[in-house]
């Protein structure tokens, strides 16, 4: 009998301040992702079911992850893959609220999964129409070939959508010009001090410097004359 570890209810709320600032997402909807994984060290992947992710609202990014833990055989396959510098492949079937089904393929070096104790980040990128365009797996690593502490996945789900494009900031610039003009007008009326008043901070050090250098010279001369006596 296989033991199935099911992690349910890992809830990650992802909200980014800048998304709120310039969100270009006009629509909200849900996403269902079914995940398949391949551990085999072979060009052709053999996919087995891993679990699924439900993003209840793409705008808030709230998601529920439900997936099986790894079996010992799978862990050893992963280790074997990592030893051969292979890649763990993940196939994702995304179903959107608009009814379309899109398949994505992503991969991560197996040793990174071992190094991070099966902690991975699944990033879902949406386009401006809230359709998923990329689902990619990544792991922070480091690249280690040891057995992981656990056989449970720790999956972080991140939903990202496009930022709004920049627009030329004309209003601010005009304001700035206005301010500068005002400042100039004010400055022109104010700055009619005398030459010394304006540049004293330069003249005084120069004078002091001159004084100092002339003051040190006689002393040295005096010392020299004394020695000659």
């Amino acid at each position, binding site marked *: 009998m296989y033991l199935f570890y099911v992690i349910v209810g890992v809830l990650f709320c992802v909200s980014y301040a800048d998304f709120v600032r310039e969100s270009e997402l006009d629509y909200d909807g849900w996403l269902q992702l079914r995940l398949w994984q391949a551990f085999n060290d072979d060009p052709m992947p053999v996919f087995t079911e891993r679990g699924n992710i439900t993003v209840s609202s793409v705008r808030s990014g709230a998601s529920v992850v439900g997936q099986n833990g790894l079996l010992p055989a799978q862990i050893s396959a992963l280790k074997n893959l990592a030893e051969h510098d292979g890649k763990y492949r993940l196939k994702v079937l995304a179903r959107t609220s608009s009814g379309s089904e899109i398949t994505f393929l992503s991969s991560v070096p197996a040793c990174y999964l071992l190094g991070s104790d099966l902690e991975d980040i699944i990033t879902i990128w949406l386009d401006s129409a809230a359709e998923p365009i990329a689902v990619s797996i990544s792991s922070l690593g480091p690249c280690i070939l040891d057995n992981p502490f656990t056989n449970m996945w720790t999956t972080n789900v991140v939903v990202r959508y496009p930022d709004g494009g920049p627009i030329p900031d004309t209003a601010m610039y005009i304001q700035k010009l206005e301010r500068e003009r005002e400042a100039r007008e004010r400055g022109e009326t104010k700055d009619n001090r005398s030459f010394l008043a304006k540049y004293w*901070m330069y003249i*005084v*050090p*120069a004078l*002091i*410097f001159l004084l*100092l250098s002339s003051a040190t010279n006689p002393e040295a001369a005096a010392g020299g004359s004394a020695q000659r*006596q």
Partner: protein
Amino acid sequence: MTMTANSKQSSKRSKWALDFAHKTKQDKSVEIPSPPGYTPTGSLFHNVEYMRESDSNHLIIKKSWDLALGPLKQVPMNLFIMYMAGSSISIFPIMMVGMLIIRPVKALFTLQQTFKVIEGTHAFGQKFVYFLGQLVNIALALYKCQSMGLLPTHASDWLAFVEPQTRVEYSGGGFIYV
């Protein structure tokens, strides 16, 4: 030299004073006074010599303490120069700061020569104080450099030496042709 001569004059008042008034017959037996500047006894000479020695020792110590404390005395002046130099990067402030640094460093290098004439119990202490004073001056100058941003203490100062990262993976591709 002049100082020692003066002190001698003050201590041996009779040396230059000639008493012509008391010249009498009964004094005939008495020898005529020695010519000015002549001192017949050697003991006196000894005394003077001793006096002169202790005196000059004292003076040398005093003088060398002056020398040793010189750098420290310069500190307020340097502070003033630093204040006046301002923090802009232009030729005069740079020259000033350069002088502030170079002078103590030079002095440190010529430390042995400066203290060659000075011997005695205080020599080490004096040297140490002098050294310390110059260090204080250097520190001040460095502080000035730091405040002017002349010291390479930021990451940006070493940016030119950062090697580009070598790439591990190589990629190519684009639109499909068929």
